[in-house]
């Protein structure tokens, strides 16, 4: 029971203090009231804003870039073909725009009928006239001071109807009015104080908006959750780590380890509208050392197929069981039908952080193994089971609690990290941003779980493989032969660049410490054009057109893991990898 009299006394005292302040204030010179500014009229381009229906997401106009990879299959391909291998040398910047944010800018500009939406670190979305570069509105949501987010970045917004959907660092889903930038609703997805944070773009499909959470280094239990687009109300939630009794729980035989088992969802799924299955990548187990969580640990380091209607897991493929190398399967596989042994396979292709390229087969449910091969130096797997693809793991390259393992290649950053691959239907090739010649020494140690604290129990020191002459690569592989066609090597840079393919026979990406956007001949890897922007480029380039003119757009803004790798290489090479300038901006290019 509260003592009303005493609380009343406190209230009276507070009221007295306020009255005193009022009296003091009354003695000050009066401050003239500011005139109320007239309301700013909505720009015409926003008055005419074109809502994004399900049909437009399924079959986007070639002028638009409505989703982070443009199409649900995850190709990162635009059919626009004004800019070609023959004229790309004449490409020039049209406008640039400072975002005012630091840290790594990992979001593609999203373009709907000439309106561009850019997400940046710091929970910011900027709407820009895509042709002129004029700002239309700006939204920023302040994160808590003690935010837990090991990667302060954002990988893009989603559009649906007249809404813009944003997943914030502190694990809140926000719906904005696309015409005004004002919040329509917010929905808390998970508790940031327990180490859940978000860095992915939402996925919109089947009238729902879906997100997952990061936090595999803070002992989260990963999940994907769906929300009603109109209200923000949660519709379903499915965990990437099964509870006792659920399918896959037999791979967590020891006690309550599943409760802190990791399985983060870092990146947005790709989606098959025919089967209603969304394909998500899942992260490492928590803590890092597999010997602290015996079992295969489903569904860590996997692809899971989630039915977007019901939120049930209909299929999965685990790239390696019982991870001990921090090889999250960060990216989802892309959906490509490819030829093998005289038949066309409804395929999934995944370029995994563990250094293997995986060709899989999708269905309305199970995912099956077709072929796997290393695309960078891989010292941990001695081979794959020819039927299942399960790797034969070298125990000497497997760290454990109190056990050091060295010569682990690729490093914990992986042969490829989160930056997405692209696929061109013209060349039938996928384009991979790879990092070669980096390895790890990992040492495990005991660790205790405390909500919100680091729950890793390991340290990883990155080193350079003997005889290395480069790190960053762009690789092209033909999906119907399973053979590598070309490799471009960067002599003095790692590669953190997301890939874009366009209809003019070109492949685009940044990713290098020289701040450049690069355009390659998609057929042979020849560099045809480069341009140094203000900072390094991590996010996906995109292509769109307005008034019949094709543009290339990308965010420049180095940071997060690219900054870490650059710093590590600078130490290892005695000063050859100095700090890359930071600070975000949007760059848009076109032919004269």
């Amino acid at each position: 029971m509260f003592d009303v009299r005493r609380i009343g006394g406190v209230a009276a005292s507070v009221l007295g203090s306020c009255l005193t302040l009022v009296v003091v204030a009354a003695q000050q010179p009066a401050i003239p009231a500011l005139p109320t500014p007239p309301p700013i009229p909505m720009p015409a381009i926003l008055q005419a804003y074109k809502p994004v229906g399900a049909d437009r997401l399924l079959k986007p106009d070639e002028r638009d870039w409505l989703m982070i990879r443009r199409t649900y299959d995850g190709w990162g391909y635009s059919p626009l073909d004004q800019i070609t291998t023959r004229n790309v040398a004449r490409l020039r910047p049209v406008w640039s725009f400072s975002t005012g944010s630091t840290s790594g800018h990992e979001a593609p500009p999203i373009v709907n009928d000439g309106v561009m939406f850019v997400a940046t670190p710091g929970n910011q979305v900027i709407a820009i006239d895509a042709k002129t570069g004029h700002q239309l509105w700006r939204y920023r949501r302040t994160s808590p001071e003690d935010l837990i987010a090991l990667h302060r970045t954002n990988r893009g917004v989603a559009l649906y109807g007249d809404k813009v959907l944003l997943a914030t660092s502190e694990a809140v889903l926000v719906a904005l009015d696309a015409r005004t930038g004002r919040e329509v609703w917010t929905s808390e997805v998970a508790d940031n104080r327990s180490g859940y944070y978000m860095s992915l773009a939402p996925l919109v499909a089947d009238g729902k908006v879906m997100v997952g959470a990061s936090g595999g280094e803070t002992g989260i239990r990963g999940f994907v959750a769906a929300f009603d687009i109109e209200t923000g109300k949660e519709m379903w939630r499915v965990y990437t780590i099964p509870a006792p009794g659920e399918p896959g729980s037999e791979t967590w035989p020891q006690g309550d380890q599943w409760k802190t088992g990791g399985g983060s969802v870092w990146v947005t799924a790709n989606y098959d509208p025919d089967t209603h299955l969304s394909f998500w990548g899942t992260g490492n187990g928590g803590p890092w050392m597999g010997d602290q969580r015996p079992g295969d640990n489903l569904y860590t380091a996997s692809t899971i197929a989630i039915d977007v209607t019901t939120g049930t897991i209909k299929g999965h493929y685990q790239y390696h069981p019982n991870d001990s190398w921090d090889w999250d399967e960060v990216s989802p596989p892309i959906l490509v039908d490819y030829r093998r042994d005289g038949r066309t396979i409804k395929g999934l292709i995944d370029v995994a952080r563990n250094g293997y390229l995986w060709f899989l087969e999708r269905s309305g449910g199970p995912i099956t193994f077709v072929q796997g091969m290393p695309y960078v130096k891989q010292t941990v797997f001695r081979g794959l089971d020819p039927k299942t693809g399960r790797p034969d793991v070298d125990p000497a390259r497997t760290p454990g609690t109190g056990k050091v393992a060295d010569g682990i290649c690729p490093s914990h950053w992986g042969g490829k990290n989160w930056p997405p691959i692209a696929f061109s239907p013209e060349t039938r090739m996928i384009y991979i941003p790879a990092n070669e010649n980096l390895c790890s020494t990992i040492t495990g140690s005991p660790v205790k779980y405390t909500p919100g604290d680091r729950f890793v129990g390991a340290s990883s020191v990155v080193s350079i493989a003997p005889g290395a002459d480069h790190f960053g690569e762009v690789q092209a592989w033909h999906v119907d032969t399973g053979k590598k066609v070309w490799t471009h090597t960067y002599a003095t840079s790692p590669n953190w660049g997301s890939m874009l393919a366009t209809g003019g026979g070109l492949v685009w990406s940044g990713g290098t410490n020289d701040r450049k956007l690069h355009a390659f001949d998609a057929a042979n890897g020849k560099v045809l054009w480069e341009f140094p922007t203000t900072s390094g480029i991590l996010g996906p380039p995109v292509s769109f057109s307005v008034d019949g003119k094709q543009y290339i757009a990308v965010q420049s803004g180095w940071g997060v893991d690219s900054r870490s790798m650059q710093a590590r290489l600078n130490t290892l090479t005695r000063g050859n990898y100095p700090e890359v300038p930071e600070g975000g901006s949007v760059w848009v290019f076109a032919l004269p």
Partner: protein
Amino acid sequence: MADAPQGVGRRTVLKGAVGIGAGLALAPVVAIAQGDQASARPREGDLLVTVDDSTLKPLTPDDIPLASAPTMAWAMEPKERIVRSGSRLNRVLLVRLDADALGAGTRARAAGGVVAYSATCTHEGCDVGGWMPVEQMLFCECHQSTFDPRDAASVVDGPAPRSLPALPLTLVDGRLVVARPFTARVGVETV
């Protein structure tokens, strides 16, 4: 989620506040006041306790092992014994080093050879809990930033953009006591 934390964390503070409040008339007011105190940054006169010590024993230099991995601690308001664990940014790391090896500025902030720094990395906000025993350097396991505890926790390697803020210490009755607030804003400074 998993079991409740063993150490003195936010939940302990909250439980403690509710426990005290239940016997008093001004329960919500007391709880709010304690919550504020628990979230406030360390202040002059605060004692230090390890993060997992439920007995709240104030630390002395002898409790900090010489030239070893950092001891994680919270500041504690001495009168009401309120542990300032209400914000993760309050976490402090303590290292005891040979006083002669300390730089002049660092020596002035040390007490009994013990130096205190914010445990929150200035890069992405991870806890700096690692230790390189040969080099005697602090190490952040998230992104490999390395800091020199003898030289104001300056960055010697890795992506951290600035030093770890220091927490100046003094000795009172043999116990480690906060002499002044953090020397700089703690945490990450991205916009």
